[in-house]
C-alpha cells in the first residue's frame, strides 16, 4: 500500500499549480454554465421541453443507443479477428480501425456526403428504392457509427490480448464447442473492455457535432441532435436553450465518467 502524504515543499507548489489548472479548465466553464442555467431556470426548462429540444434529445439518445449495440457486436467480432486471426493485411486493418480517431469529423461528414449526397455515388441507387440518407436520420446514424467505431473494438482488443487464449484452450479440452466457449468463457471475460468501450462510445456519440452537422444539416425536428441544437440555439441567440442543453450533456458526460471510475474499482 502506498502511503498518502500531504504535499510539502516544492510538491506543494506543483500541487497548487495542478489544482489551479484543473479549476481554470474544468470547474470555471462548467460552473459558469450551471450559474447561467440557475439564473434563468424556468426559461431553460421551457426551452428544453419544447418539441424541437425533445426531438433532438431523442435523436441523440437513439443514435447513441444504436451505436452502443452495433459497436458492442462489431467491436467484439472485430477484436477477435484482429487479435486472434493471422492474415495478410491484418496490421493495415489494425491501423485503419483507428482512422476515425485521426480524421476531423468535418472531413468524415464530407466523405459521407460524397457517397450519399445529391450527387453522391450511391444516390441513384438509394433514390430508386426511395431511401433518403443525406439530411435524414440515417446519415446522422452512419456518421456517428463511423466516429465511434474504434472505442469498443480497441478496449475489447486490449482485454483479449491480455487474456491470451489459454482459457479457451482449456474449454476445448473440456469438450466445449466454439459457441459454448465464446458465450461462457470468452465473452464474460471481456466485460471490463465492453464497459469502458460502451462508455466511451456513448460519450462520443452524444457529443459528436461536426460530422452530424455536415451530413445531417441540423434540421430541427429531423436531423437536429443535442449538439446541433446547441449550435443553432447560439446562432439564434436562444441562450437558455443553449445553456440548458449544454448543461444536460455535461451532466451525462460526468455520469458516464463515474460509471467508468466505478468499474475500474
Amino acid at each position, binding site marked *: 500500500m502506498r502511503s498518502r502524504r500531504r504535499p510539502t515543499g516544492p510538491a506543494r507548489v506543483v500541487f497548487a499549480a495542478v489544482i489551479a489548472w484543473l479549476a481554470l479548465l474544468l470547474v470555471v466553464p462548467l460552473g459558469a454554465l450551471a450559474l447561467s442555467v440557475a439564473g434563468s431556470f424556468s426559461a431553460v426548462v421551457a426551452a428544453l421541453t419544447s418539441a424541437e429540444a425533445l426531438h433532438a434529445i431523442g435523436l441523440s439518445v437513439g443514435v447513441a443507443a444504436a451505436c452502443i449495440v452495433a459497436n458492442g457486436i462489431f467491436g467484439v467480432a472485430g477484436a477477435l479477428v484482429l487479435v486472434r486471426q493471422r492474415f495478410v493485411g491484418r496490421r493495415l486493418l489494425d491501423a485503419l480501425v483507428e482512422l476515425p480517431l485521426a480524421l476531423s469529423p468535418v472531413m468524415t461528414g464530407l466523405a459521407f456526403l460524397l457517397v450519399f449526397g445529391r450527387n453522391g455515388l450511391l444516390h441513384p441507387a438509394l433514390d430508386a428504392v426511395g431511401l433518403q440518407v443525406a439530411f435524414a436520420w440515417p446519415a446522422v446514424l452512419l456518421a456517428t457509427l463511423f466516429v465511434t467505431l474504434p472505442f469498443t473494438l480497441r478496449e475489447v482488443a486490449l482485454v483479449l490480448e491480455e487474456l491470451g487464449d*489459454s*482459457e479457451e*484452450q*482449456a474449454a476445448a*479440452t473440456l*469438450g*466445449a464447442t466454439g459457441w459454448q466457449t465464446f458465450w461462457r*468463457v470468452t465473452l464474460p471475460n471481456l466485460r471490463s473492455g465492453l464497459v469502458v468501450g460502451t462508455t466511451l462510445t456513448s460519450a462520443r456519440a452524444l457529443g459528436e457535432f461536426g460530422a452530424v452537422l455536415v451530413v445531417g444539416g441540423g434540421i430541427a425536428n429531423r436531423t437536429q441532435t443535442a449538439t446541433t441544437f446547441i449550435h443553432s440555439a447560439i446562432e439564434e441567440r436562444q441562450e437558455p436553450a443553449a445553456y440548458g442543453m449544454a448543461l444536460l450533456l455535461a451532466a451525462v458526460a460526468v455520469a458516464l465518467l463515474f460509471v467508468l471510475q466505478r468499474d475500474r474499482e
Partner: protein
Amino acid sequence: MGIRVDHLVKNFGATRVVNDVSFEVRPGELVALLGPSGGGKSTVLRMIAGLETADSGEVWLDGERVDHLHARERQVGFVFQHYALFRHMTVGENIAFGLSVRGVAASEQQARVTELLEVMGLRGLGDRMPSQLSGGQRQRVALARALAPRPRLLLLDEPFGAVDAKVREELRRWLRKLHDEVHTTSIFVTHDQDEAFAIADRVLIISQGRLEQSGSPVEILDQPATEFVARFVGDVNVLTGVVRDGRAWVGGVGAEVQGLAEGATVNVVVRAYDLKFWRDDEGPATVRRVMTIGDRVRVEAWLDRAAAPIFAQFPRRSSLLHGVEAGCRIAVEITQARAWPTPGAAE
C-alpha cells in the same frame, strides 16, 4: 486406457520442434516427458490433446485414431502450467464446466463437484473465485476440472512449475497418490528430473525434438542410452579419457567401460556418487573445496594429470571423508562410468 504416438513431426516455421517421436503408454501408467526447456516436450503433449496439429504422424487412444479429431472430441484432460482456470467462475463452476457443456444433469454435476472437491482436499472452497486461492489450490482445482468429465487420458504440462518448492514437493507425492487412486493414464511434462524420477513409472527423455530414451527411472540413471541422457540426468563429471585394456583412463585413473575401440578418445561420464575419494598423500588429485549441503558433502578436487576438475558427493558421515580437507591429496576411484567416443577426435 492406452495411448500410442507414431512418428509425430511438428515444425514451427523452419524449425523442427518435434522430430519423429514415437512411444506408447500402457493403461494406468504415469509417464514423464523429461528434457531441457524448449526441447519439444510440451508440443508433443499439446499434439496429443489436439491443441496443436501435427505436421505428420498419428495419435491413437484406446485403439482409435484421434489425430484428426478436434480437441473437444478427444476426451483428453489437460492441466495447464498456469492453470488457465476460468477466472469469472467459482471453483465449483470451473470443475463442473466439462460436465455442463456436455449437458450432464445439474444434480449429477453437483455430485461430481462435491466428490472431486473432497478428493482434492478442497472441501468448502467450491464457492470461492480462483483469484482467492493459493497457487497449490489453483493447481488442484485445475486437476479436478480436467478429471471431472472422466477423461481417457490426463495430460499435465509442467504441472508444478508455477508453485514454490515446498508446495511442489507435496503436490508431487499427492499427484502420485491421486493417479493410483483414480486409475487414470497420465503423461506429464517436466524439466525437473527429481520430479520425473520421484513419481513417474517411466521417463521419456526428449531433447531437440527427439526421443532420446524411454525407461524406468533406474534404467535411465544406470543405463543411459546416449551421452546426452547420461549428462542430463544427475550431477555428473564429464572427463576426456583414452581406452586402454578395456578401461577408460582419465589422468591416471581407470574406469571400467564396454564396447569401445582400443585407443579411442572418449568422453567419460561419471556421476558424483559413483566416485570415491579418500586421503592419500600419493594420490592423483588435490582437494579444492569441501562443502556440506544438508545431509551430503560435496568435494571438489583437481585431477592433476588430466588437468580437469572433478567432484564427488558423499553422505555426511561417510568414513571416506576422514581427513579430507581443502589442500590435501586424495586417491580417486571411479566405481561406475559410461563412455562415448569424443565427437571429431582421432582414434
